[in-house]
């Protein structure tokens, strides 16, 4: 062995060690920590135990913490457990490799782990009308970014961990929420367009409407669908012969048990809008000087004047309703004129209630109209089935190829298989470094790259065989074989790389995933075949006594 070869060996060994380390968080055992609430019951714990009762999980419990370990623990499972009763918090514990190196585990796409995928498209017409000019691409980009921040807030509040929220182009936002059980809830939370208005309440007619409602709908349950409410509201308005300037809406409250927002009683409002949602700049929860929970808000410069007008002397004692998407969510009393542009709403709120209100006001300030244009939800079991059968098929496929390779090329097949294993390790390692998300098309890309890795070996070995047939010595045959195969492999793979590059640059979500695996896979397979395998054969060729090459 020459000195160069020694260095090369050391380099290769280091590379392999590092790569194996990098793939540990992805293929190794993962741990999830479940913290239980103080009021957790034995039954709650039983439910958790049952969820992880299948053989592949291990549970450790001490005090109020359960540690689940297993190879199949995903964000979706984390989010699923999070909403169990008696569970305070769930988090995936970081693998030590993740802590010390740059590696991240490869996330599974929603098609594989289950969850919800949404694309929201921004509609700028409203803003353009307000500004009275066409928005530039830069404006649109900025507004989308702003909406993105707000959406992130909303989703964080929803308690979904590991959400992915990304802009798509200048006017759309892509949201991925692993393991969401209640898509309609999420959709409502993030799809609310924020048509928030502040309108004055008419007490006289409200009293009449309430009386009528109490009499006619006392025992009857309210219908389920939104559309039917409109009918009832019209009925009420007609019954109390409401003037044209007024409108009846329902006052909504959050049901404490179910968490659903339900209509409680009718309330009559001015049709005229005193203040728009966008006239408010921010809203936060705070405590006033008496220690009461209040919602503090600040208006925009424009809004301050409007607010001063709405809270002026004649309106003192009246209520100002906060109307979100035609639902009255709150109606605080006007106590004094607020001209400074900042004020607060008090009302003996529980902290949660105040938080919800502040949230509503903030959401009203969301400046852009977002519409869901694409939505995909995959149930957890379907995703689970996909990943299990996908992995199984992949494993059987690879083993079959390996057996075939050994059967055909003997010793050469063994080296080819080693190369194939290294190929997969390197690919997964690089994808880990990139923080990649694996989807079904991604598996396809991976498969194609494995096929090309096999192909590279076949091309090389066939060349070496040809050279041997021509009567060349083993050393020369190996050298010529690799040299000649080099450009064949290079050219054929480079065209594929070009295609992958285009797909990556201009493709959307899943196609991008396909392109990345293909791209990385092909580069790695070229490296393994043309560098590593070649090196192994160069080492073999050092053995001058070798008479026959098993290939």
């Amino acid at each position, binding site marked *: 062995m020459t000195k160069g070869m020694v260095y090369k060996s050391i380099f290769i060994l280091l590379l392999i060690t590092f790569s194996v380390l990098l793939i540990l968080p992805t293929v190794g055992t993962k741990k999830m920590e479940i913290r239980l609430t103080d009021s957790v019951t034995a039954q709650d714990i039983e439910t958790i135990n049952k969820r992880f009762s299948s053989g592949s999980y291990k549970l450790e419990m001490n005090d109020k913490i359960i540690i689940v370990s297993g190879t199949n623990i995903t964000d979706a499972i984390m989010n699923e457990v999070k909403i169990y009763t008696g569970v305070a918090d769930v988090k995936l514990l970081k693998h030590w490799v993740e802590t010390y190196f740059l590696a991240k585990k490869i996330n599974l796409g929603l*098609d594989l782990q289950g969850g919800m995928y949404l*694309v929201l*498209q921004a509609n700028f017409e409203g803003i353009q009308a307000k500004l009275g000019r066409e928005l530039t691409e830069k404006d649109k980009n900025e507004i989308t970014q702003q909406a993105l921040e707000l959406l992130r807030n909303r989703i964080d509040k929803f308690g979904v961990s590991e959400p992915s929220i990304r802009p798509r182009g200048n006017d759309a936002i892509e949201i991925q929420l692993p393991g969401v059980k209640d*898509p309609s809830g999420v959709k409502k939370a993030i799809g609310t367009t924020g048509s928030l208005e502040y309108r004055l309440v008419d007490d006289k007619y409200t009293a009449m409407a309430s009386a009528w409602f109490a009499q006619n709908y006392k025992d009857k349950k309210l219908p389920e669908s939104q559309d039917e409410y409109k009918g009832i509201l019209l009925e009420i308005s007609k019954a109390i012969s409401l003037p044209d300037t007024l409108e009846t809406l329902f006052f909504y409250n959050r049901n404490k048990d179910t968490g659903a927002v339900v209509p409680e009683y009718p309330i009559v409002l001015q049709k005229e809008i005193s203040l728009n949602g966008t006239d408010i700049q921010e809203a936060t929860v705070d405590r006033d000087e008496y220690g009461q929970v209040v919602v503090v808000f600040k208006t925009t410069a424009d809004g301050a004047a409007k607010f001063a007008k709405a809270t002026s002397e004649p309106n003192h004692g009246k209520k100002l309703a906060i109307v979100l998407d035609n639902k009255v969510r709150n109606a605080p009393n006007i106590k004094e004129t607020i001209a400074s542009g900042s004020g607060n709403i008090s009302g003996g709120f529980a902290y949660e209630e105040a938080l919800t209100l502040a949230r509503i006001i903030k959401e009203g300030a969301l400046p852009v109209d977002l*519409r*869901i*244009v*694409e*939505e*995909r939800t*995959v*149930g957890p079991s*379907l995703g689970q*089935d*996909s990943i299990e*059968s*996908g992995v*199984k*098929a*992949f494993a*059987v*496929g*690879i083993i*079959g*190829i390996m057996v*075939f*390779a050994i059967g*055909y090329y003997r010793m050469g097949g063994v080296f080819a298989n080693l190369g194939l294993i290294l190929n997969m390790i390197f690919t997964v390692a690089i994808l880990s470094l990139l923080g990649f998300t694996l989807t*079904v*098309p991604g598996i*396809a*890309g991976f*498969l*194609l790259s494995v*096929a*090309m890795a*096999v*192909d590279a070996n*076949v091309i090389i070995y*066939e060349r070496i065989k040809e050279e041997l047939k021509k009567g060349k010595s083993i050393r020369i045959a190996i050298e010529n074989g690799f040299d000649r195969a080099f*450009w*064949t492999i290079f*050219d*054929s793979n*480079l*065209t*594929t790389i*070009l*295609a*992958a*590059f*285009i*797909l990556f640059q*201009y*493709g*959307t979500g*899943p*196609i991008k995933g*396909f392109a990345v695996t*293909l791209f990385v896979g092909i580069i790695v397979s070229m490296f393994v075949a043309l560098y590593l395998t070649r090196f192994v054969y160069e080492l073999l060729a050092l053995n001058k006594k070798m008479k026959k090459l098993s290939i």
Partner: protein
Amino acid sequence: MEKTIKFLKYKYIAIGGYWAVVIMLLAGTFINGGFNYGIDFAGGYKIIAKFQDSSVSEGVIRKALNDFNPTVQKIGEESKNQYIITTKLENTAVASSKDSADQTSNSKYDMLKKTLNEKFTGVSIQSEETVGPAIGDYLRKSAWKLTFMAVLLMSIYLAFRFEVKYAVGGMISLFHDMIMSVAFCGIMGIEINVQILAALLTLYGYSINDTIVIFDRIRETDQLRAKTTFEDVINKAITQTLTRTLLTGVTTLFAVLVLFLIGGEALHEFSLVLLFGIIAGTFSSIYIASPITLWWEKWRAAK
């Protein structure tokens, strides 16, 4: 090994046969009612629902949801009682204006779910997808753009690294692959969606790879050519690379076959397209790409 198989002797039969198959597949597709664009490209609503009641069948569901004009298809194991229910925008009356379609169709999908729950007991929705018309349009356009750019870039590379005749042969062969594989999706009623698009792209990658290995050998053999014709050179090159072509083809086919057999529902149609496409792609490398290159060479020489 020394014997050269005269592949190109049969080029007319092969190309004729190839086109006969393509025409048959396309004709069958149109008799069956054209291509089955998935909601990714057409826009629409798709759910996978699991029914408790085992007496449910495709026909029963279709009848119950008649108002929505759905396609219903049973998937997975018999005992699982799982069905894919799809309604596309073009099937419904609401697709008239883009804006209103976004709005009304959403509530329409809720209606569909509601009807399903009313008419059957114990329905659990396994997955649910909605794609608006604008997105379908966007995805379709970007798919075309991608294909076009990828082909263009590969042609330029081939023309640069090899010669124009190889670029022409490679690209015409690639277009053949595209027509053949899309026709196959058509006749099998395979839903053309983003995943199938990925499978198709995989095929084109595989096929062009296969073609270039042969071209590379043609180029090499051509440089050593003495008195033989270009056709003989091509035959020799194909023969010499035949072992490689078959070995790679068989191993890849094996991997895909396993995926098809035990890869589960998500990969079923996907691997079916790959299975067919790998065979077609291998064939096109030998019998489309090579004859085209030969003809181009002859045409240039005659000029």
